[in-house]
C-alpha cells in the first residue's frame, strides 16, 4: 500500500499476519489513541492462512474470500498498513526499525509478529521445478494451479499441512498421492497416537499411500530442471509430477537475533509476551513463551517448564489481543489462553484442545473404528487436553471444561470415569453453563 510513512510511530508491528492485524485492531478496541504502523512483507492485503491448505486449495473462492478485512478497515481505525515491505534491521538503542525500502522508522514500542516460514529439506541442494511448499497465499496460488495437472503427487512430511494437501490432491484432483514421513507415525508433534491412526485410516480410504518411518534420501531430476521423483533411504524410487514439501516451519527470528535479543526456536518472551527488551514484544508463530503454569488451569505444564510455540490461528489471535491490552493499558498479565487447533483432511475433521505433550495416560471416547471418536490425555490423573476426530461435540465439551474452574469438573473427568458406562462429556460441559450449577458428581 502506498502513502508516505511518518518518521515515528507510537507502536510499530512487524508482520501483517493474523497476530499482527489482531494486535493493531485490538489496540483500537482497547482505546489506544496513538499512531500505529503495521508492516508486512507479503504483497497481498492481510488474509486468513488456514484456508490455504483447505477450501482455497480445492479451488473454492479467490483471495478476496479469505482477506481478513475489506478496504477502509485500516483507514477507519487509523492503522497505517504497509504491505510488500519487510523489516531488515532493528536498532533497539535508537528505537529504529529499518524497512526493506531503506526507510528508518522510529518506534515507541515494537511488536514482532514475523511468523514462520516453510522449512526446506537440506537434501534439495538446489532449486528444482515441481517442488513446492505451502505457507503463503502466493504458494497456495501456485499449488492450486499445479495440482490439477499433477497425476502423481509425493508429499514429504506427515504433519497437518502435508496431510491436508494430500487429502485435497487425492479427493479433489484425483491424483495418486504418496505421503512419506520419516517418523514412525503421522502428526507425531501435535496429535495423540490414536488420532493419528484415525487420520491414517481416512487417508487410506481416499486412496493415499502412506509410508511412515521412511526418510527421503534424494530428490530426483531427470532433466536437471524439474524434479521427477524421490528416492527413499531404503533405495526405493517414487515417481512424481509434483513434490510437496511439508516438513514444518522455522520461526522468523533473524530480525530479533541480529538486534541481540535472545532467540531459541522462537524469540524468547516472558509469560506476559515481552522480550528481554522492555520496549519489544513478540507474538504468534515467531514467539516462544514459557509453558510453566500454562494453560491457566493450575496444573504444571506438560513437559515441565519448557517453552512452547504453538503455530495456530488461536494462538496468533489470542496473543495479539493479549499484547494489545498490555500496550494500551499497561497491564502485565500472564498469557494463559486455552490452546485449540483444527485440521481438515477430506471429510475428516481433527480438533484438539490443550497441550497434551507429557501425558502419561489416555482414554478413548467412542469407537475409533467408526471414524468418530476422541482421545483424552491425562497426566497424574489430571486432564491436559484431547483430540477429537469427527467428534465436534466432544471437542466443544472439552473446551468448555478446560476453560472452567477445575474444581467444578475435575473429579468427574478421570481415565476411570471415561471408561465407565454412561459417561457423557457433553452433559458435564452443559452442567457448567449455569454458573450456579452443582459440581458434577463423580460417575
Amino acid at each position, binding site marked *: 500500500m502506498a502513502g508516505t510513512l511518518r518518521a515515528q510511530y507510537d507502536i510499530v508491528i512487524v508482520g501483517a499476519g493474523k497476530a499482527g492485524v489482531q494486535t493493531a485492531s485490538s489496540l483500537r478496541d482497547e482505546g489506544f489513541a496513538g499512531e500505529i504502523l503495521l508492516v508486512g512483507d507479503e504483497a497481498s492485503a492481510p488474509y486468513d492462512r*488456514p484456508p490455504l491448505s483447505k477450501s482455497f486449495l480445492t479451488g473454492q473462492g479467490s483471495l478476496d474470500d479469505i*482477506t481478513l478485512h*475489506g478496504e477502509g478497515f485500516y483507514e477507519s481505525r487509523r492503522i497505517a498498513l504497509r504491505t510488500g515491505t519487510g523489516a531488515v534491521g532493528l536498532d533497539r538503542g535508537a528505537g529504529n526499525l529499518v524497512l526493506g525500502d531503506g526507510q528508518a522508522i522510529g518506534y515507541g514500542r515494537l511488536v514482532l509478529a514475523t511468523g514462520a516460514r516453510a522449512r526446506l529439506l537440506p537434501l534439495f541442494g538446489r532449486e528444482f521445478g515441481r517442488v513446492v511448499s505451502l505457507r503463503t497465499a502466493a504458494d497456495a496460488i501456485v499449488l492450486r494451479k499445479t495440482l490439477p495437472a499433477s497425476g502423481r503427487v509425493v508429499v514429504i512430511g506427515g504433519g497437518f499441512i502435508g496431510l491436508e494437501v494430500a487429502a485435497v490432491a487425492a479427493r479433489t484432483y484425483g491424483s495418486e498421492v504418496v505421503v512419506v514421513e520419516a517418523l514412525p507415525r503421522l502428526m507425531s508433534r501435535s496429535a495423540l497416537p490414536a488420532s493419528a491412526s484415525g487420520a491414517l485410516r481416512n487417508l487410506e480410504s481416499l486412496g493415499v499411500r502412506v509410508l511412515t518411518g521412511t526418510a527421503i534420501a534424494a530428490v530426483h531430476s531427470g532433466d536437471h530442471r524439474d524434479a521427477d521423483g524421490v528416492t527413499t533411504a531404503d533405495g526405493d524410487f517414487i515417481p512424481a509430477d509434483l513434490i510437496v514439501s511439508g516438513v514444518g516451519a522455522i520461526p522468523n527470528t533473524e530480525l530479533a537475533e541480529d538486534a541481540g535479543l535472545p532467540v531459541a526456536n522462537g524469540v524468547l518472551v516472558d509469560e506476559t509476551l515481552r522480550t528481554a527488551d522492555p520496549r519489544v514484544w513478540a507474538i504468534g508463530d515467531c514467539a516462544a513463551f514459557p509453558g510453566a503454569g500454562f494453560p491457566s488451569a493450575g496444573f504444571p505444564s506438560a513437559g515441565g517448564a519448557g517453552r512452547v510455540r504453538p503455530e495456530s490461528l*488461536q494462538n496468533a489471535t489470542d496473543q495479539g489481543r493479549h499484547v494489545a491490552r498490555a500496550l494500551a493499558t499497561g497491564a502485565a498479565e500472564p498469557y494463559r489462553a486455552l490452546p485449540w487447533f483444527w485440521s481438515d483432511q477430506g471429510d475428516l475433521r481433527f480438533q484438539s484442545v490443550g497441550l497434551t505433550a507429557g501425558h502419561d495416560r489416555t482414554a478413548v471416547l467412542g469407537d475409533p473404528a467408526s471414524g468418530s471418536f476422541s482421545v483424552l490425555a491425562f497426566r497424574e490423573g489430571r486432564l491436559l487436553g484431547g483430540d477429537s476426530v469427527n467428534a465436534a461435540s466432544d471437542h466443544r465439551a472439552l473446551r468448555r471444561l478446560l476453560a472452567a474452574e477445575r474444581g467444578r469438573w475435575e473429579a468427574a473427568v478421570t481415565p476411570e470415569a471415561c471408561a465407565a458406562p454412561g459417561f457423557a462429556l457433553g452433559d458435564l460441559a452443559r452442567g457448567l453453563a449455569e454458573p450456579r450449577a452443582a459440581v458434577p458428581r463423580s460417575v
Partner: protein
Amino acid sequence: MAWVTYQHSDGTSDKVDVPVGTSVMRAALANNVPGIVGECGGELMCATCHVYVLTPRGLGPGRSEDEDEMLDFAACPRRPESRLSCQIRMSDQFDGLIVETPEAQN
C-alpha cells in the same frame, strides 16, 4: 446480489449488497461492518460472528447441530433467532435479510 441489513446495538445500521454465495459474516468483514468478528474464518471453531436474524423469521431453526452447539460459546445470550453468520450463505431468497449484531462477540 442480495441486500443484507446489519442493525447494531447503538441504533445505527449498515446495508450491504452481497454477492450470492457469500456468507453474511464474510460480507460484513469485506465491507467494514462493525459488530461481527469472524475470528476462525468461518470454520465453526468459534462463535464470534453471532447474529440475531430479525427477517425472515424462522431462519434461526435452520442451524446445523454443529452450529447450534457452537452458539453456546457466544459472548451474548443466544435467542431462538440466533445464528452464526458464517453459516448463512446469501441467495436471492434471502434478499432483504435483516440481522441484529450483538453487543459483544468476545
